[in-house]
């Protein structure tokens, strides 16, 4: 076969690969062994840096080696510092004064540059290496001359390769904060990435952090200003309609339609009842220890700080205070919790007392423009449901839109959507049931102030079917709960505790 091409057979190739593999394993072990010996001996020198490079370039996830490198870098820096101090101690006349370049800084900078180059190479091998990203941050923190613009370019480059790498997005947020990149510019970048591929949780999330900052909502009852919200809703619905099976857009839309509740804000008073023997307080969200928040009761000239709060339930949403108070009829009382101040109403009936009640998720007001946008979106969803009656995300979204437009008028319709969802998306049946229970309770609690016997009695009609009873803390101001036998059975021990229950126990 002279002059003919001979190609390795697969058998031969496999054999060769095996040898190569064995050789690599030996090289790896040898290098690791050497590194460990050197470390025990405290030799944090240049050889150590070279040895770790060899391994990290192939496997950037050996965090031990990154730790060793950090030790080496710190060692080098401290040596550098010593050298400089030594030089400074020398008589000054040997050096020409003034023009001496800052050699130390240059040297230090080159140490950092070397680390940055290494992490960059390693991130090419594994762009999702936690250790490599972390080492990069560490290096930049050490370097007083860190070039944040360069880091920004690096993010751009990596996000071009993979626009969904959440490591890069995370790192980008870190860099943009350091480089003081204007949020508007970041938003534009984020929009570009979404245009390329909207199936990207990271970029939607990035938006959700930027928008509230750029377009704050004055009332704080929506995630951002209504005008911007309108545009965002339009954009996200377009994405959702283009590919309804992609969940990222739907999740973002859910956030947009939400109340933009800031997790860090203090809990608010949901319900409060005061009698001369003590008081109960329900919060709209759990709080670990109410004693740490200042609660102040004002009535006429009198000002009392309520202390010694004890939890009524295990979740930290309802609290009792066994402080006896000198309740005065015909005095208007108000309660102050943190920066929230609410006026109490006198309890109807013969007994003395006052109360406060605010149903959960009182509908946020809505400008005409936003309302129009929501209605357009709802119409689009309903149009789509004609073509695809079983489309899960469309069913859920249209229910959410209806509620955003007008909660009580659309209550029945939105529950009908959930009932349908339980069938078409049976795997999440429990989720939809819970959601239905929440919506029902929100609806019933909103109606409660108009009901007879409020706030002493709460009645839930027999035909209201519930899988659970959320918002239980709101009932702490009631005396009697009229719930169906079936529901009581279902709830078992978790029937909400009422004011009357506490009295029976002898708390008040």
């Amino acid at each position, binding site marked *: 076969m002279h002059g003919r091409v*001979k190609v390795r057979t697969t058998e031969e190739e496999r054999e060769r690969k095996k*040898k*190569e593999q064995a050789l*690599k394993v*030996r090289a790896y072990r040898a290098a690791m062994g050497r590194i460990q010996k050197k470390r025990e001996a405290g030799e944090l020198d240049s050889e150590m840096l070279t040895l770790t490079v060899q391994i990290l370039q192939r496997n950037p996830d050996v965090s031990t080696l990154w730790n060793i490198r950090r030790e080496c870098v710190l060692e080098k820096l401290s040596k550098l510092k010593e050298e400089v101090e030594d030089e400074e101690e020398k008589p000054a006349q040997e050096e020409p004064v003034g023009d001496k370049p800052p050699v130390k800084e240059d040297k230090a900078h080159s140490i950092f540059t070397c680390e940055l180059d290494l992490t960059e190479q390693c991130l090419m091998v594994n762009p999702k290496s936690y250790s490599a990203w972390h080492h990069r941050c560490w290096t930049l923190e050490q370097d007083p001359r860190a070039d944040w613009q360069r880091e920004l370019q690096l993010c751009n480059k990596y996000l071009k390769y993979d626009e969904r790498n959440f490591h890069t997005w995370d790192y980008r947020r870190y860099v943009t904060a350091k480089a003081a990149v204007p949020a508007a510019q970041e938003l534009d970048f984020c929009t570009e990435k979404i*245009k390329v591929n909207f199936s990207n949780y990271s970029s939607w999330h990035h938006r959700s952090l930027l928008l509230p900052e750029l377009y704050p909502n004055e009332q704080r009852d929506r995630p951002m200003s209504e005008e911007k919200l309108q545009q965002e809703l339009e954009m996200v619905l377009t994405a959702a309609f*283009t590919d309804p099976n992609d969940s990222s857009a739907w999740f973002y839309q859910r956030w947009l339609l939400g109340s933009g509740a800031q997790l860090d804000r203090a809990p608010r008073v949901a319900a409060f009842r005061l009698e001369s023997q003590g008081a109960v307080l329900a919060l709209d969200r759990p709080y670990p220890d109410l004693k740490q928040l200042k609660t102040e009761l004002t009535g006429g000239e009198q000002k009392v700080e309520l202390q010694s709060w004890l939890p009524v339930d295990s979740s930290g949403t309802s609290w009792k205070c066994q402080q006896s108070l000198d309740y005065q009829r015909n005095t208007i009382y108000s309660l102050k919790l943190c920066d929230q101040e609410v006026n109490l109403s006198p309890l109807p009936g013969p007994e003395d007392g006052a109360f406060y009640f605010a149903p959960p998720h009182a509908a946020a007001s809505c400008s005409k423009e936003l309302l129009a946008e929501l209605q357009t979106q709802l119409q689009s969803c309903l*149009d789509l449901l004609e*073509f695809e009656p079983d489309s899960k995300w469309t069913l859920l979204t249209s229910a959410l839109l209806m509620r955003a437009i007008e909660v009580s008028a659309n209550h029945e319709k939105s529950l009908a959507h959930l009932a349908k969802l339980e069938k078409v998306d049976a795997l999440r049946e429990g989720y939809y049931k819970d959601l239905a229970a929440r919506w029902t309770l929100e609806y019933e609690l909103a109606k409660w102030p108009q009901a007879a016997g409020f706030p002493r009695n709460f009645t839930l009609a027999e035909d209201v079917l519930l899988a659970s009873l959320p918002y239980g803390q709101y009932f702490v101001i009631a005396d009697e709960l009229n719930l169906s036998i079936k529901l009581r059975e279902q709830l078992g021990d978790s029937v909400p505790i009422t004011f009357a229950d506490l009295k029976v126990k002898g708390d008040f």
Partner: protein
Amino acid sequence: MSDDLPEQFDLVVIGTGFTESCIAAAASRVGKTVLHLDSNEYYGDVWSSFSMDALCARLDQQPEAHSTLRNASYTWHTTEQEPETGEPTWTKDSVLAKSRRFSLDLCPRILYAAGELVQLLIKSNICRYAEFRAVDHVCMRHNGEIVSVPCSRSDVFNTKTLTIVEKRLLMKFLTACNDYGEDKSNEDSLEFRGRTFQEYLQAQRVTEKIASCVMQAIAMCGPTTSFEEGMQRTQRFLGSLGRYGNTPFLFPMYGCGELPQCFCRLCAVYGGIYCLKRAVDDIALDSTTNDFLLSSAGKTLRAKHVVSAPGYPPVSKGIELKPHISRGLFISSSPLGNEELNKGGGGVNLLRLLDADAAREAFLIQLSHYTGACPEGLYIFHLTTPALSEDPAADLALFTSQLFDHSNAQIIFSSYFTIAAQSNKSAAAEHIYYTDPPTYELDYDAAIANARHIFGQLFADADFLPRAPDPEEIVVDGEDPSALNEHSLPEDLRAQLQDMQQATQEMDIQD
């Protein structure tokens, strides 16, 4: 030089067009001795790309009875005077001064990213000789405007021309087409079997705009296209999406003339011999050996088989050619369509044109300098339609008026020509195999099928273009094929190995 040629070949191929080159490469690849001749001084025959000068010279050449390129004409539309003020405009001289920056195709094509040719290039490893640019926009005419057809998911998301419900319908329709055929018994296939694709489309409750996107640009079909055919074409389009860039298409950098040369190169790597500017004067059959005797430049060559492109004497004598494709080639200093379609200087845009009742079609390929086919600031428009007559300009008049009548395209140069084909394919005289000249198609499917067919006739049992090994896979004579090649290791690992040999002596390292 002719004396250095061997005298005996398994195969002599006459003409270096796409199909011939494909056959030559395939034969050479499986160990056949191949001589590849072309009387032209360039590769590619009518599949070639030319510089500006060379194109004019080629179009000036007097056609003969057997020529596949005919009815050629060209016109310069530039004024000779320099304008007094403003930006410098292009003149004939300034264009010709950049002649070598042009790669002007006689037969421009667009490749489906997962189509026959791309698959063949990958399978045979010929792809390493070629470079491509992803087509930037697939366009259609809508209400007299050229608009981009949303191809990918991100296109659909970003387009402003569809309402959100339309977007949903389009995506749903495309998904349905893509999934079609996986379950043969699905309702649609039964209901629409034997009916037209258009009827199917109408039954899907899609809007008029979506219907035209699909008919004109995605399925690329007409009112009479059958349901099965339309589905197949749609799938072909969708199957090529998401591979490279935003559209399902590729265009070869520096023009389509590169492609035959890629095949020639593989042929040469496997020992094929190339002679350009070499005509065959006569062919005879040796009745005792059944070999062909070719006389060329005073020398007689023996060949077991002969493959020839039409249009090459003496083999083409007696073959009747008739117009097959009418071509228009234009150079303009401004692109077609709006700014959005030509962002950043434009790229490659594809537009399928139809007459009023969609009975006739043409396709337009617009190229910018990013393809390496023309200088910066100029654009090439390639217009191709099936020929009706010997007058290519008349055949194309309808489409040129659609394109240029109400546009601001500044045409500098225009040319028209015809590509002819055999009127009778059975004319394979004396066991010489004739390849088909370029047919009217977007990709190279028919040409590849033609090459495959002829190759199968010649060497029935041989593999058609199996994968060519990469250099590092090739074993040099006398080498242990399973030996570990130290040079295949990265440099630092090699250095490390040497250190290690010392280290292993000191430490007890177990494998």
